[in-house]
C-alpha cells in the first residue's frame, strides 16, 4: 500500500506541471491566432479598423476613445486591447494586423533609434516621423503627455523649496528610485551634467511610489500621467532643460487607412490635455470605472 501511494505523488506533480505547460501554450497560441484573424478582417472590409492598445489602463482608455469616435463615424472597430509591451505589438502594427495604436512620441522614437536625444515635443515628433517605417503614419500628436518624470512628496518639496529638478542641486543624500533600467537611462546618468544634482540610484521597481511615501527614497521616477501623483499628493518637478524625452500621445496608423480616419482621430488628439489624461487615469484606477465608460464621458464632454 505504501509503495503505490508514494508513486502517486510524482505522477500528480507531473500532471500539474503538464497542465501548466499546456495552458501556457494555449494562451500564446490564441494571441497569435488573434493577430492573423485581425489581418484577414482588415483585408475583407476596408471600413474595419483594428485598434490596439498596451496593457496599461491609460493607453487603453485612449484606444477606447479612438474606437468610439471611429464607430460614430461609421467604421466597424475591432478592439485588440491589452497586448503588452512595445516589443510585442509593434510587429503586428508593422505587418498590418493592427491599424491604429495610441503611442508616445519619445518612447516610439527610442524604439527605432536607441541613440535618440531629448528635445521639445515638436523636435521629438519630427525625429520620430523620420524613423517610422513607410507603411506606418503618425497622425497629429496631442498636447497630452505621459512621460517619465521626477516626483517628490509635497512635504519634501516644501521643506527643500523644490519646484524644478535643478532645485535638488543643494540637497544632500538624495536617493532616486525607479525601475531597474533607470540606472542606465540618460535622464538619470545626465542629472549631474544637466542640473548639477548628485543622486544615488535605488531599484524600487513596482514599489517606487510606496517607497517614496514611506521615505525610503527621496525622488521617484513615475510616469507623468500616473494617478498616484494626484492621490498620494506628490509634486512633479519641472524639467525646463529638457532632461526627459517628450512623450506626447500620438496615434500611429497603417498608412493605407490613415487618411480616412485622420480627421476624426486628429480631433481627439487636439482636444485631449495632460490634465484630462491624469483625471481619466484616476477614474480608472481609483474609481474603478471601465475604459468604455470613461471614454464615453470624455467624448460627450469634449467632442459633443
Amino acid at each position: 500500500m505504501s509503495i503505490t501511494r508514494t508513486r502517486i505523488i510524482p505522477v500528480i506533480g507531473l500532471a500539474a506541471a503538464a497542465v501548466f505547460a499546456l495552458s501556457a501554450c494555449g494562451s500564446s497560441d490564441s494571441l497569435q491566432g488573434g493577430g492573423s484573424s485581425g489581418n484577414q478582417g482588415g483585408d475583407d472590409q476596408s471600413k474595419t479598423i483594428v485598434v490596439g492598445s498596451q496593457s496599461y489602463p491609460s493607453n487603453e482608455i485612449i484606444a477606447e476613445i479612438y474606437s468610439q469616435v471611429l464607430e460614430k463615424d461609421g467604421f466597424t472597430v475591432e478592439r485588440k486591447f491589452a497586448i503588452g509591451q512595445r516589443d510585442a505589438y509593434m510587429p503586428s502594427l508593422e505587418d498590418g494586423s493592427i491599424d491604429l495604436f495610441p503611442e508616445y512620441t519619445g518612447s516610439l522614437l527610442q524604439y527605432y533609434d536607441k541613440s535618440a536625444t531629448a528635445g521639445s515635443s515638436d523636435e521629438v515628433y519630427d525625429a520620430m516621423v523620420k524613423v517610422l517605417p513607410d507603411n506606418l503614419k503618425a497622425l497629429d500628436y496631442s498636447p497630452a503627455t505621459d512621460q517619465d518624470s521626477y516626483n517628490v512628496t509635497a512635504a519634501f518639496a516644501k521643506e527643500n523649496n523644490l519646484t524644478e529638478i535643478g532645485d535638488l542641486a543643494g540637497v544632500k543624500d538624495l536617493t532616486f528610485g525607479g525601475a531597474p533600467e533607470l540606472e542606465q537611462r540618460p535622464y538619470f546618468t545626465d542629472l549631474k551634467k544637466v542640473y548639477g544634482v548628485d543622486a544615488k540610484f535605488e531599484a524600487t521597481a513596482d514599489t517606487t511610489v510606496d517607497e517614496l511615501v514611506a521615505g525610503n527614497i527621496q525622488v521617484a521616477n513615475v510616469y507623468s500621467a500616473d494617478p498616484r501623483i494626484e492621490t498620494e499628493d506628490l509634486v512633479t518637478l519641472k524639467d525646463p532643460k529638457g532632461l526627459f524625452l517628450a512623450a506626447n500621445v500620438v496615434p500611429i496608423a497603417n498608412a493605407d487607412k490613415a487618411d480616412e480616419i485622420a480627421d476624426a482621430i486628429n480631433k481627439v488628439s487636439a482636444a485631449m490635455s495632460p490634465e484630462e489624461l491624469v483625471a481619466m487615469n484616476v477614474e480608472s484606477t481609483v474609481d474603478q470605472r471601465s475604459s468604455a465608460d470613461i471614454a464615453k464621458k470624455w467624448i460627450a464632454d469634449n467632442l459633443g
Partner: protein
Amino acid sequence: MNVFLDAFAWIFSPDRTTGYLPLWEAVLQHLGFTFGSVAIAALIAIPAGWAIGHTGKGREIAVFLSGAARSLPSLGLVVLLYLVIGVNFKEQAAVVAFVLLAIPSILAGAYAGIEAINRSTVEAGRAVGMTPMQILWKIEVPLGLPLLIGGIRSAVLQVVATVTIAAYVGLGGLGFALIQGIQTRNAAQILGASIVVVILALVLDGAFALFQRIVVPRGVAVQHSSPTRRRTRRAPVPAT
C-alpha cells in the same frame, strides 16, 4: 552563437563589478534568498513530514495543503503580500512566498522517505525493544534521509529559479539584471543574467546530488548494488 559570446562577454565585463548592483553581489543576494527561504521551509516541513511519516496520520491534509501552496503563482503572491503588509516589509513578503514554494517538496521528501522504508525493518526495531523515538531517530530518519535530501534538492532548484521575481519589488538578486536588460532591450544582458541563474541552479543541483549519495546509510547502499535481492525483498510488501 554570437549572442552567447555577447552574453559571456557581458558576464565577464569589468563593468559587472561596479554600478548599482555588481554581479557578485546580485549572486550573493540571490543565494541568500534561496538558502534563507529553503532553511525556513525546512524548519517547518521536516518535523511535519517526519510526524506524518512516523504516525501515518495527516497525510491527506498535508498533500492537499502543500498541493494548494504549490499552485499559488509566486509573483502574484509576492505582490499581494507586499500590498498587504507594506513596503517596509517587502523582504518578508518575498521570503514568505518562497517558503511556501519550497515547503511542498521538502514535506513530501520527509514523509515519503519514511513511508518508503520496508515495514519489516521498522517491525524489527520494535521487536528488539526500541521506543517510538528510537525507531524514528535510529531507523526512520537515517533511512529516509536520501529522499528528504531529494526533496530539499528540488525545493532549492524551484526557489533559485523563482527568486528572480524579487527584483519586481526592488529586492535585487539576478532578476534585477534580467528586468533591466528586458527594458533596455539588451539581449546580451538578458541572456548573460539567465546563464548565471542556470549555472547557479546546476551547481546547486550537482552539490545536492553528491550530498544525496553521501547520506545513504551503508547498509542501504549495499542493498542498492544488488538489485535482484532488492526486488525479491520488496515483492511481498504490496501483498500485505
